[in-house]
């Protein structure tokens, strides 16, 4: 450990009482987020080393949820930047508040102020700068910044992110460089619709999130939908796992599992049967081709297998 000791801030942003990835896992668990070894280590290192966490995985495996949970654990506000194609600096970083600048100018004129230099420096001061999510996150301590679905933004936008994520600074030409006293915890998510530039990934910890296994999925359902019986949770998880094994256009994520369980609970279902599966399949599968394919499955057998296997 001798080499790197000097490089590390003492504890980073770790919450009190967390000193190992296992501790992080317990803490996430208490906050209602079930993680595994990899994800707990990733979250631990992100906090300890002040490194952005780049989460990739299928839609609905809990990428965004992790950021929310981290914000809860750290008692920090969650600042979210939803990316979309064409997003630019004035929507992500900062913008000048032109109407107010103009008002200020008019007021100065009315008061007969003639000192042009002073007026100009006043006009381009921090109070006329509107903070958009990235600047907001740098100025809020502590905070959790969620850059959601970065793959939807275009390449140009990644360049803005680079500066923010590597030095936690933002340069405003008229004002100078603004930096964060304590860098925010950054979670970047991607659904992998396109390959994000390497330069951006290099500054982050990379973690690929998979669909959870049967046992963990049952636990998640039990946690998030307490009204569901243990048996129902197991049957739902069993069917979803079977569906993921099929060759579907969009395999269901955890979000769909939870939606479905909620739908079943709303219908007053205590246990699952093949008819119920067929009628409520719309909560899990969102493509007609997938529904057609799934109907060919023998749901009675799947449900029975879960009930038999425990």
């Amino acid at each position, binding site marked *: *450990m*001798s*080499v*790197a*000791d000097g*490089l*590390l801030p003492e504890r*980073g942003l770790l919450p009190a009482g967390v000193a*190992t*990835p296992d501790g992080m896992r317990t803490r996430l668990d208490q906050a209602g987020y079930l993680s595994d*070894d*990899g994800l707990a*280590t*990733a979250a*631990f*290192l992100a906090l*300890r*080393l002040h*490194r952005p966490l780049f989460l*990739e995985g299928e839609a609905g495996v809990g990428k965004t949820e992790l950021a929310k949970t981290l914000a809860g654990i750290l008692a920090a506000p969650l600042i979210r930047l939803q990316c*979309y*194609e*064409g*997003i*630019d600096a*004035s929507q992500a970083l900062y*913008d*000048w508040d*032109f*109407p107010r*600048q*103009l008002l200020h*100018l*008019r007021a100065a*004129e009315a008061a007969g102020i003639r000192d042009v230099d002073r007026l100009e420096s006043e*006009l381009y001061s921090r109070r006329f700068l509107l903070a958009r999510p990235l600047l907001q996150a740098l100025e809020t301590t502590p905070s959790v910044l969620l850059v959601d679905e970065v*793959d*939807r933004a275009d*390449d140009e936008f990644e360049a803005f992110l680079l500066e923010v994520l590597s030095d936690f600074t933002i340069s405003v030409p008229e004002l100078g460089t603004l930096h964060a006293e304590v860098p925010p915890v950054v979670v970047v998510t991607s*659904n*992998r*619709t*396109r*390959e994000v530039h*390497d330069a951006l*990934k*290099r500054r982050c*910890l*990379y*973690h*690929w999130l998979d669909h959870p296994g049967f046992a963990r999925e049952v636990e998640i359902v039990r946690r998030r939908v307490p009204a569901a019986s243990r048996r129902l949770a197991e049957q739902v998880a069993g069917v979803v796992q079977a569906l993921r094994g099929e060759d579907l*256009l*969009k395999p269901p994520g955890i979000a769909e599992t939870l939606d479905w369980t909620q739908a079943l609970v709303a219908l007053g279902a205590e246990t699952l049967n093949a008819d119920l599966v067929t009628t409520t399949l719309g909560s899990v599968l969102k493509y007609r081709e997938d529904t057609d394919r799934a109907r060919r499955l023998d749901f009675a057998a799947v449900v029975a297998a879960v009930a038999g296997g425990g």
Partner: protein
Amino acid sequence: MPASPDSPPDPTGTVVGFARTLQAAGVAADPDRVPAMITALAALNPRRRADVYWAGRLTLCANADDLGRYDRAFTAYFAGEIPPDPRRQTASPVRRLSATMQRVPAAEPETGAADQRTLPAAASGTELLRAKDMAALSPAERAAVHRLLAAFALPGERRPSRRYAPAHRGAIDAGRTMRELLRRGGEPARLRRHTHRDRPRRVVLLVDVSGSMSAYADALLRFAHAATRRRGVHTEVFTIGTRLTRVTRELSHRDVELAMVAVGAAVPDWSGGTRLGELVKAFLDRWGQRGLARGAVVVVLSDGWDCGDPAVLGAQMTRLHRLAHRVVWANPRKSRPGYAPTAAGMAAALPHVDDFVEGHSLAALERLAGVVAGVSVASAERSAAPDRSITEDTRA
């Protein structure tokens, strides 16, 4: 220098060695990432195998494709054996590529073998070359064609983007108008306007590198290289054979010969059979549906010979057609006299293709570029330089 996770207290040597092993195994793991792994290790327990595993995986990997290679390299390295370095084998892909090229005249002796030696070295040489089937070129002609291919561009049809650019007419640009006002000390000034900027659509090329296409694969990949080299245009290239391989990264080498060597190394299935349907499905599952094909112009460069079930190809082409802005199929065999799309795969795919064009010569590729840029097939053919007339028009 492989070492078990619990031997030396200073992990630098071990980490550097491990990063090299990973690079050899095909994981990005560039040297910039090494310090990240060292700091990560320092924050964890370097004597625990799991901690070493995660410290490396979180810092040295850059995408999901890396994970399998990472696992193998990790096991091998920390078990004391170094996996074979694929870079040492770069010679063989080159050989495979050149073998493909040399085999060409022998494999296609019936087409144009006679006039090969009597090509007039005149100004009209280029014109003849442009129209000539690329499967029937002499080595000298092929070199000339490769030079001409380098000048190609393949921008997609234009579409409005979400970004704005200053313009004379359009919506009022509040920001610029206000700045103008400020500059004049608050005096009313000219209104500034802006409109949505245009940008070319993404172009996705699916290049068939199976055995039946071996005469064209090299030239088509050079064409793809030229297309990806243009700035401001987003082009993605995949090869299809027995497997789907994304070669966009390999083609990003500036030098075309280096790019071709890199592609040769990356593509495992030169000259095998094609399972078009399954591979179009693989493309859609892994890339297309998530967004790569959405709103894009997708070009399939293939002769439509499919070893798989044509029904699969038909279903996948329907899916592709629904996602993409336009689907173009370029078939080098379409120019042959008497060609009809009777190959089962081609027949199944045609109803879901917007434009069905040729792809056998430079002139045909120029027309293809025109079609991709949004020119209608008819006018693309009219504007193309003199070429033998297309009589057997089988377009649906």
